[in-house]
């Protein structure tokens, strides 16, 4: 017993607008310092990995330690180009939104490595259940940029007929599940998809995606419960980019120290990885994917990264975090780090980089031009108003037929 009154505790970020960026609480182990256990290890033996950060690229751009993946120079250059494409794509679409060509856009700045590297580790038959910040999964799988843009413009060629907010892509053929917009709902669906594959005795696995803030949602818990119980062949990805709109990750994380730790309470092996390190991200993804594929069950992976841009085109981060916070982010920029590594490898030069940049920009601009030929949100080709009534059901029921008639379309 005590005579002290209780006090309410609300976690606060280290710094706010006007303050200096402060990441002193992000403990970063040396590259190469975290061990690489075999994939069939007893989860109990690697609980500590949920509190560390697996890193491969050191400060000099060298790949070091047990997690160095078997990616050759060509593969890494391809990865580099994927990330550069995503960044160029973001820049053009952000601008297109500012120009009023669409209603909304969400960038990936600083997080490109996560989805680009993961996609390379995954098989073509597998399925991602992404959030709105994993377009790298499409780009690294050669989904046409034009199709992405047509979706963003909600134009006549939009594969989903103008029905969804920009960036809410869907492509079964590219292993990219339709994005919901309701946070975390798909995390548990990924587990169900993986269960189905196991029930059928197939070989396909699923990858679930969620942001740091969204781990607080109930669907995250449901996913862990079902994945743990049925040992579903699924990789449970948490992209910790430090922010959920204006809310710092401490609000969702509470006292656990890391998001990876959430897995421990379910006996799910959990790894934490430097999400700005393309090689480490790939290596960890590969490890988790192999576990799923070998029927060893789910793995939880936390990607430690930083959302360098605004949450979306509706957001202005200077209202809630120091203006230059991103410059203080200790894990750097994924593109610069991979570029440095490629140069250190001798597989790349500043010149080739500039060339690639120009080339990629040209490709993106060409795609944009083609997409805009099919219309933008407010002008040119549009999906039909009849499309409002289609696909609610496989067949139009009588009441919708009446309504469509009434609508005069």
């Amino acid at each position, binding site marked *: 017993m005590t005579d002290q009154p209780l006090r309410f505790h609300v976690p606060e970020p280290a710094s706010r607008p006007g303050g200096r960026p402060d990441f002193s609480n992000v403990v970063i182990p040396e590259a190469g310092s975290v061990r690489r256990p075999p994939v069939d290890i007893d989860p109990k033996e690697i609980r500590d990995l949920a509190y560390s950060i697996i890193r491969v690229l050191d400060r000099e751009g060298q790949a070091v330690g047990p997690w160095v993946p078997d990616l050759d120079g060509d593969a890494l250059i391809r990865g580099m180009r994927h990330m550069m494409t995503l960044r160029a794509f973001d820049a053009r679409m952000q601008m297109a939104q500012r120009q009023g060509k669409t209603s909304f856009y969400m960038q990936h700045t600083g997080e490109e490595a996560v989805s680009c590297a993961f996609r390379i580790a995954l098989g073509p038959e597998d399925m991602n259940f992404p959030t709105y910040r994993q377009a790298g999964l499409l780009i690294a799988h050669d989904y046409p940029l034009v199709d992405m843009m047509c979706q963003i413009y909600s134009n006549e060629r939009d594969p989903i007929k103008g029905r969804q907010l920009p960036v809410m892509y869907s492509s079964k053929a590219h292993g990219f599940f339709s994005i919901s917009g309701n946070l975390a709902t798909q995390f548990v669906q990924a*587990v169900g998809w993986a269960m189905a594959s196991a029930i059928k005795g197939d070989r396909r696995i699923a990858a679930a995606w969620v942001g740091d803030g969204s781990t607080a949602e109930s669907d995250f818990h449901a996913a862990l419960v079902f994945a743990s119980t049925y040992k579903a062949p699924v990789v449970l990805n948490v992209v910790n980019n430090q922010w959920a709109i204006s809310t710092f990750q401490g609000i969702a994380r509470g006292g656990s120290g890391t998001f990876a730790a959430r897995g421990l309470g379910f006996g799910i092996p959990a790894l934490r990885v430097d999400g700005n390190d393309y090689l480490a991200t790939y290596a960890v993804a590969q490890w988790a994917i192999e576990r799923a594929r070998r029927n060893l069950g789910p793995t939880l992976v936390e990607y430690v990264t930083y959302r360098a841009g605004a949450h979306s085109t509706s957001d202005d981060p200077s209202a809630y975090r120091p203006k230059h916070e991103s410059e203080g982010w200790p894990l750097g920029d994924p593109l610069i780090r991979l570029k440095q590594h490629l140069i250190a490898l001798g597989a790349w030069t500043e010149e080739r980089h500039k060339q690639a940049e120009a080339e990629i920009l040209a490709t993106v601009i060409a795609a944009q031009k083609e997409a805009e030929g099919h219309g933008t949100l407010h002008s040119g080709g549009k999906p039909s108003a009849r499309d409002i009534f289609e696909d609610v059901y496989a067949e139009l029921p009588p*009441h919708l037929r009446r309504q469509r008639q009434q609508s005069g379309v």
Partner: protein
Amino acid sequence: MPNCLRTCAGSVSRAGSDAMARMTMIEAIRSALDVSMGRDENVVVYGEDVGFFGGVFRCTHGLQQKYGVNRCFDAPINELGIVGTAVGMAAYGLRPCVEIQFADYMYPAYDQIVSEAARLRYRSAGDFTCPLVIRMPTGGGIFGGQTHSQSPEALFTHVSGLKTVVPSNPHDAKGLLIAAIEDPDPVIFLEPKRLYNGPFDGHHDRPVTPWSKHELSEVPDGHFALPLGKAAIRREGASVTIIAYGTMVHVAEAAAEETGIDAEVIDLRSLLPLDLDTIVASVRKTGRCIVLHEATLTSGFGAELTALVQEHCFYHLEAPIMRVAGWDTPYPHAQEWAYFPGPARVGAALREIMESR
């Protein structure tokens, strides 16, 4: 075919044996699951206690033993997870038919139902689909109190992308459940639990009759599907139309018998899609309409029925459409029979509507 199914039954599709058997509603549901699992190995069944034990109402009894633990299994107590994983499975290509132990416990799954299952086809323009059935026991009359008695159908009929089905007898339960499982879209399948073991006319103080005495307990043995969206006229009449579904169909029939009023009783069977044609034809004929349900009155499905009937039959109506429904309160325990819209309340409404104008 039983006599009382003679109208609007739609085309019954049937494969396999034409043999009939007497079944309770529970047996009919189990038979539908059995037949579906036997024909299509993509049909999987799970939910709380549905595996080894076979469900608290025994609707899945024996299925795990017959089809294996891969096809019928116990789920953690997380309705969100049950439906959420089922959405993923359906997208994969399976046909999950999951059980929510009581409709009162579907709320944790509501987001997955509304935001996910119902909209997947639409938002992906048909790239992904969600052929999923969610079964749940519904309704009162078993002294179940507030959390074992609810009728949440209006919470589904308001959601575009869902179909909502409520059988009132073993025959329909089997035919509709098989159709629901074969449907390419998510179907909410509400099972009036007070009907599981016998038809219930609302007279709680009289002995229970078993299904075996009711002609609609005669159910085809093998595969047969009843189309979703076709109502049945359970009782023909000229003076007033009663629109009902589930348990209230039997209450309506009892009230019509007791009052001697020449009421036509429509059993909707499917609320959405709705068989508006059958409703409109009947009300235009009778000129009077009573809408019945157990669910609370305000914003209940009866409101929608009333709105449609007044829209389509306005010039034929001789009296205001009346609604008889659960009172707008949580479902009480001790006062169950003062709460339940039984034959007395329906009879009073019949008499009142016949006096109008």
